[in-house]
């Protein structure tokens, strides 16, 4: 089966890979582009561990085909920090103990960053519904929601 040549921008860098038409964007990011921060928890769009932004829109990369990413701008957890400077969400997740095993953390950070770009002052309920597509089995979400609220507050103050 012939493979497709795909060119995409991942976290600002141009990335090229050959992809089987059956492979998902998640498969391509992990297996062809070496972007291992994107995690597979279900492969059916239910857990959010593979959350990335595709041209600014939050998607489950397991529900996008690799070939659909041609020419797209993709954002993953690896692109959240600016150089050596962690994003406030990353700092607050550590500070609030908002991760235990950490496997859901990359997807939740991508989703939360996407929320704060659209809504810098979300309520607790808005955060809970925005993150309802990101399963965490360890924390019961309490400290995650607090970390997002605290990061949002800090970012509002800074802006």
């Amino acid at each position, binding site marked *: 089966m012939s493979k497709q040549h795909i060119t995409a921008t991942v976290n600002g860098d141009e990335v090229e890979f050959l992809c*089987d038409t*059956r*492979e998902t964007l998640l*498969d391509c990011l*992990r*297996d062809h582009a070496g*972007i*291992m*921060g*994107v*995690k*597979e*928890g*279900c*492969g*059916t769009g*239910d*857990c959010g*561990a593979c959350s990335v932004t595709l041209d600014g829109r939050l998607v489950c990369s397991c529900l996008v085909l690799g070939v659909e990413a041609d020419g797209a701008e993709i954002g*993953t*957890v*690896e692109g*959240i*920090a600016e150089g050596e400077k*962690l994003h406030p969400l*990353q700092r607050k*997740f*550590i*500070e*609030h*103990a908002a*991760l*235990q*095993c*950490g*496997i*859901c*953390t*990359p997807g939740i950070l991508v989703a939360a960053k996407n929320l704060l770009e659209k809504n810098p002052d979300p309520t*607790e*309920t808005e*955060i*809970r*519904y925005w*993150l*309802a*597509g*990101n*399963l*965490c*089995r*360890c*924390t*019961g*979400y*309490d*400290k*995650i*929601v*607090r970390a997002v609220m605290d990061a949002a507050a800090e970012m509002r103050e800074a802006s």
Partner: protein
Amino acid sequence: MALDGQKTAYKYIGTTPDRPDGLDKVTGRARYGADISMPGMLHGAVLRSPHAHARIVKIDASKALALKGVKAVVTRADFPDGLDGEDWNLQENCMAGEKALYDGHAVAAVAATSPLIARDAVKLIEVDYEVLPHVTDVDAAMKDDAPVIREGAADFSVPEGLHPNVVRYFDSGRGDLDKGFAEADLIIERSYTTEAAHQGYIEPHACLGQMGEDGRGELWVCTQGHWFVRRMSTAVLGIETTNIRVTPSEIGGGFGGKTTVFIEPLSLALSRKTGGKPVKMVMSRNEVLRATGPTASASMDIKMGMTKDGKITAAHGTFRMQGGAFPGAPVDVTTMLAFANYDIENVHHIGYDVITNRPKQAAYRAPGAPMAAFATESTIDELCRELGLDPIDTRLKNAAREGTRATFGPKFGPIGLVETLEAAKTHPNYSAPLGPNQGRGVASGYWMNWGGETSASVAISEDGTVTVSIGTPDIGGSRASMALMAAEAFGIPYEDVRVNISDTGALGVNEPTHGSRATYASGLATIRSAEDCIGKLCKRAADKWGIDPEAVIWEDGCAKPSGPNAGEFPPMSLAEIAGEMGSTGGPISGHFEDSPAGFSGSFGTHVVDVEVDPETGRTTILRYLVVQDAGKAIHPAYVEGQFQGGAAQGIGWALNEEYIYGEDGRLQNPVFLDYRVPVASDLPMIDTVIVEVPNPGHPYGVRGVGETGITPPLPAVANAVREATGKRICNLPLRPSRVLAAIQGKG
């Protein structure tokens, strides 16, 4: 053991520094099971039975092997014969032999040059099945006409006359039940069921195995316990235990489900067959739900008697549990812990371990305890309601405390149930006003904890830091706890401690991170190893000063002369001693190995408020409070995290999560959309109160806190729904359809 010598004033313990692995885990750098690759690596995939029970007549892999890129196929014929006991169970579960025993049971495995080719190849393997009658329900499996899953699976304990599917029997108790029930003013009898729930870790099982023709190799795997993986995988393969070195990756959740093996022996067998090429295997979520261990389902009968003023006079429980196609449903623990919260003179438990055509159960957080708690704590709630008694006061009246003879026999040492009940009673949540269709539920729970085989090592480094090597994978922040305990023991800053999770080649045997033991046992081992180092550090100072080592003490991170008689020398810091250790006798390290027996259980009390929509039967959690005894909270934020996570899992089990089998014996919901774990919008903030009744068996008083938290939510939520609706529902989960039927009188 007395409290003498136990520390009570701390510099580092009880603070909440950033975890050492935090940065890796918020940047995507942390390497989990599926994140590891090797040059020349192949990819594995597994063919699984679509039948609940079927004889495997023939397997033809010729078409698969003919596919370009396919390097090997293994079936049971590639594994040795002659195993027995649990080793045979593991082998049979990893790869079906004569029969497929459940929907999802592995039948063959393939290694190929890409994941896609491996998956394509699996579809080309032809299997002739002779489909057999099946049974997936525990009560149905005990009936005379139930299909026999395996003759001869029962052990010595099973009385004659029971169905061959009953494989273990438990019977324990004391006192005089007739007398106890005669003293009661009210006796309530109820039957309850709970469904199987999956641990639901977000990271599917994944491993990378490499084994040469000589039967030696390596395994990288996400696991709670790599020494368990080593022993089990080599047993399944019939090779010497130490032929395989196992390195744990970061682990994306386990909750008990990653204390056993599934694909690990398959990857090694495939690797050997390809001449030693590394073979990576990663399960899909479908495979995780169909073929890895959920917990047992349970069917239970409870009878309890109480006096008008709330004293429990007698309790009897019968617990029937299925743990899939193999012995192992945790009915032993269920019977032990069913009534363990209380001081009951007349008590009796009967337990049945039953096999069915379901996947082999695996441990799940406090295995066996939540089911029993649902049945017993619901019954106590009903007794309180009928007698007009406050549920917390009634529990206080009966609560086990230091010196109480536990319902399972021995006397309790210092424990904290009373303290959790008192803290719950005075918490604002317990007096918050409730509106229409709202209700409050209370329940307590217990987990007895565990010590387990433990080996640790601490090395002094030349830059003045210390490196702690432990063998319990960090599943929820335990590196931070170890670093805090080492910092406290040495009197050096938290930042000067490094924590490694060592592979099986670097330490003696360690049991997994399970049984709520890691912070207790690896923590104890870290402290004792540090003390071992401190003795050697003092000796170096003594040698330098030319005085007797006995005359040197360790204080605030420094060796000091013990008093004026010892001599006048300025203190030597750890960094100073470390900096010159290369020229004063060489490296300094400390060790500790034991199966520590000083663990002590943790009690918890939960208070939940719910609102039930009378139109739909949907239950919303309004407020949730966890009060639990941590002994001493090393890193309080991660202790709270354990409380909250346990509560969330228990809420899921109570409200939504269940294994649903069709008439065909196939799992109907092997996907997270239908196996519905709680999401962020299902839950409120989860309030926590950490009670600290120190455990005398740990230098800092630690009790394990991981498991207790999943035990009270099942009954607490059911008790709250009872108050909100007026209906006692005895079957979990409390899915909307079931609650609505109860409200409408159809339940």
